[in-house]
């Protein structure tokens, strides 16, 4: 498999040039090395790493995952090694292999986000920040930052002040008005938005009359959510001028191309990595092949071409 070199897959997002529009979705690709045997990370648009927090986190008790029709629920609980271990133990490998690295960050207060952004600012090998705002705001009774336009703005503005890095805000789909959320963070300094994070869901073990996840509720991902993701990406792309990165249920190059037609600059591939560890690279190949077949010179000719 070789990427067709006569088509231009490069995309510009937040002032950065990405090799191609295919990124990994945070939390589904570890810190990259987990896919050492499956994927050449330097061939991807970017590796978006598992969300990192200021301090290491142990995550939730098990069970943490359960399968659902054409999807899965997870309640990993944001287990991660913490920003320091990430910088010292995980980042160097990615840099050495030539990966473009986007660091996904998470916090429970506005200040935690700001501290993380400051710590990552200016670090060589970090291309951009992606801010996961689907975390509970402990100062506001645990309501997720990403479900309130004011809280989402506050996080965005704080991270913006703390770092010169290109800033992608990752939106939660568990909201009434995704366009309002996208506009709020765009106005507060986001360079791009990525969406969707997981839909809040639940599964029950009837025999035991217990939730199937120890955390009771979890995040729904996979093909099941693709129609919701596509709708929200399309809506967001109409609402803001900054680039939109599409996420949700992407399994194939066709899926990815649909998001691009709907207005996305790039896409992220999540759950598909579990089912087919080579998915991301196959999707890069598939997109290149599609463009070549359609006689298109650049991926940018396809973006936002939906006829409505």
């Amino acid at each position, binding site marked *: 498999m070789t990427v067709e070199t006569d088509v231009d897959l490069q995309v510009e997002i937040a002032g950065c040039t990405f090799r191609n529009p295919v990124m990994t979705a945070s939390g589904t690709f570890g810190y990259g090395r987990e896919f050492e045997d499956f994927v050449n990370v330097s061939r991807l648009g970017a590796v978006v790493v598992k969300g990192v927090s200021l301090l290491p986190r142990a995550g939730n008790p098990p069970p943490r995952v359960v*399968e659902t029709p054409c999807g899965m629920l997870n309640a990993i609980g944001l287990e991660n090694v913490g920003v320091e271990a990430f910088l010292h133990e995980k980042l160097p490998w990615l840099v050495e292999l030539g990966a473009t690295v986007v660091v996904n960050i998470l916090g429970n207060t506005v200040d935690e986000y700001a501290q993380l952004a400051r710590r990552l600012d200016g670090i060589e090998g970090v291309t951009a920040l992606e801010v996961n705002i689907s975390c509970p705001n402990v100062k506001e009774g645990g309501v997720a930052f990403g479900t309130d336009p004011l809280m989402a703005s506050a996080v965005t503005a704080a991270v913006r002040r703390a770092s010169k890095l290109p800033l992608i805000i990752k939106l939660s789909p568990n909201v009434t008005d995704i366009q309002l959320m996208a506009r709020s963070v765009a106005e507060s300094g986001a360079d791009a938005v990525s969406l969707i994070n997981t839909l809040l869901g639940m599964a029950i073990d009837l025999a035991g009359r217990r939730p199937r996840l120890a955390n009771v509720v979890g995040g729904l991902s996979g093909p099941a959510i693709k129609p919701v993701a596509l709708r929200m990406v399309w809506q967001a792309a109409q609402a803001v001028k900054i680039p939109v990165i599409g996420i949700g249920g992407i399994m194939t190059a066709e899926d990815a191309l649909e998001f691009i037609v709907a207005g996305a600059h790039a896409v992220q591939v999540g759950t598909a990595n579990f089912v087919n560890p080579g998915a991301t690279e196959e999707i890069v190949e598939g997109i290149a092949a599609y463009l070549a077949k359609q006689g298109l010179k650049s991926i940018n000719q396809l973006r936002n071409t939906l006829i409505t």
Partner: protein
Amino acid sequence: MPGQFLATVEKNESLGPAICRLTILAPEIAAAGQPGQFVMLRSGRGLDPLLSRPFSLHQTFPHGRIQVLFKVLGEGTRKLAALGAGEPLGIVGPLGRGFDLAAPRAGARLGLIGGGMGVAPLFFLAREIQRRLPEFGLDVLLGARAKQELEQLLIDFGPLKIEPRVATDDGSLGHHGLVPELIEKEWGKDGKLRQVFCCGPWPMMAAVAQRCRERDWSCQVSLETMMACGFSACLGCAVAGSGQRERYFHVCKDGPVFNAADISWE
């Protein structure tokens, strides 16, 4: 070094009630696989069920064949059971850390204990022990719901000159009761030091771990959890470690085989 493959089904046999033995042409896995390691399998097209399913290596063969032995439970195993010879299937492996055969304590007898589908990896383990540790004595205890679930396996053990002791829930073969009870019944009196390798349902492994702890025997267990990926990408397969609270292992990477003492059995 797991590789990602599309492999081919060579044979699919039905052994007893809803138990299948799948022979797969997967040379790299056959060459590298160790007892206690596992593969992730996925049958066919369509998005439901979505995720691959983990199965222990039941055997590896020369000429690039591997076998898995599995019970049909839900849609995933039902689709695998329906595979015919020559059909493709998705496979990733070999994965995880298998049984640790380095340096058993001198003079110890090695004891394999399997219950339910936990019997699956034990044949491969027994074969490797005979090959790599011929100087150690080897005993096998197997448990099942009923006789039929064990018949094929007992035949398989024949050529290894091992005669497993057996317990069945319904008393249709061997001891009428649970396999951990065989520890007292079969090994209780000889006073020998043992090193135990165990695979089966959680309560059975907990009971075995407890008995080993009491006797100061080392005990390796092969754990099962829900797995979305099998190769440490999802962090879904957490299991609580003993000792400190809030310390989780990941079964697909740190295991599936653990020292029983490292696991929180509550």
